[in-house]
């Protein structure tokens, strides 16, 4: 029973991350509203972060902070006891990159709105064609 659940949990995690990525990708390509596309973009980026964090999970491992007391060099540290910290570091970078991209994207969307008075892509294209 435990093994079965573990197998489902394992697959389920990857399925969910791929589903979220598909949702984000679909929104970025198919949605008409510029801000909706930006929401999709963020969902897409978060899905990738979820994937990376999943790769770092280690059964039987604890948080990647070494237990230490005063003069804590005495005990031996086993790598198997701690979760893999490297994906976490990479994903801190990715989160910050995603918020930076979000800021620039919103700034661009506001500029477009100030010029065309709409956020719908088809209405903007229609206005461009009329000129």
């Amino acid at each position, binding site marked *: 029973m435990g093994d079965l659940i*573990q197998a489902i*949990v*394992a*697959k389920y*995690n*990857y*399925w969910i991350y*791929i*589903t979220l*990525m*598909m*949702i984000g*990708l*679909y929104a*970025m*390509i*198919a949605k*008409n509203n510029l801000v909706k596309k930006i929401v999709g973009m963020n969902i897409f980026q978060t899905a990738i972060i979820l994937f990376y964090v*999943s*790769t*770092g*999970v*280690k*059964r*039987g*491992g604890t*948080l*990647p*902070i*070494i*237990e*230490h007391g005063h003069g*804590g*060099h005495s005990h031996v*540290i086993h*790598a*198997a006891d*701690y979760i*893999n*910290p*490297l*994906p*976490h*570091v*990479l994903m*801190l*970078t990715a989160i*910050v*990159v995603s*918020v*930076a*991209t979000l*800021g*620039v994207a*919103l*700034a*661009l969307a*506001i*500029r477009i709105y*100030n010029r065309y008075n709409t956020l719908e892509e088809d209405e903007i294209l229609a206005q461009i064609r009329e000129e």
Partner: protein
Amino acid sequence: MKTIGLIIAVLTGALLIYATADFPAWGDPHSPASLHVSPYYIEKTIEETAVPNIVTSVLADYRGYDTMYETTVIFSAGVACFLLLRTFRRKEPEERLYRHVLTGVTIHAKRGKLPPSGDFERIDTAWTPPDLIIKTMCRLLIPFIQLFALYVIAHGHHSPGGGFQGGVMLGASVILLAISQDLRTAVRRLGEKVDALLCAAGVFIYAGTGALCLLLGLNFLDYSALVRVLPCDPIMARSHGIFIVEIGVGIAVMATMIWIYCNVSSSGEYDEGL
């Protein structure tokens, strides 16, 4: 467009699911990712950097070069928002609204502005009376948020947190001020120019620490070179180096978050915001 989007998304998803077939089992302690590079960090972090939080030591030291660019990404986003949105030739607003503090009477000033005085306060065009509860709560909360943020930055060596999280929280406290009162109040506390300078200064602290190591004779960002300017042994020098760059990151992230918020919420006019 909708069908094309669906097809592309499904194709990508199918490829990704196909490729997961050969992944090691989820949470497997014997997967390559758990065995190849990462054990080194876990086993050596105390010995080489004296930082118990492995994420902090990898973030700011082993892969500190990535983190420097990560801070630079934030900085460039701040500059990009400023470049895109900030209006320099400001058009004078049609009319400014002033409110008499005691009576609550609103005055429409068609041209020019009232001289600053204690009797009148300037209000936004879409102005609603400030909710006393929200205003008071935020006034009470903000100092504690800032204190906690400083703790997060300073305690990043031993607990989750560090420059980014603390910096974002510091920025959020000022943004909270802007939301609970108005943008002008926040800008009075932390002007645009100061913000821009802090933003550059924060990243400069990070990159400058790295360059200092280079000038002291070792490779870029090799904090053990700081032993020649700090009174400690090379391992503690790494620990202190990490702390210095975390402060730099905190300043840069705080200033940039506020800068982006001010530009986005007022479309670059710095006049009336959210």
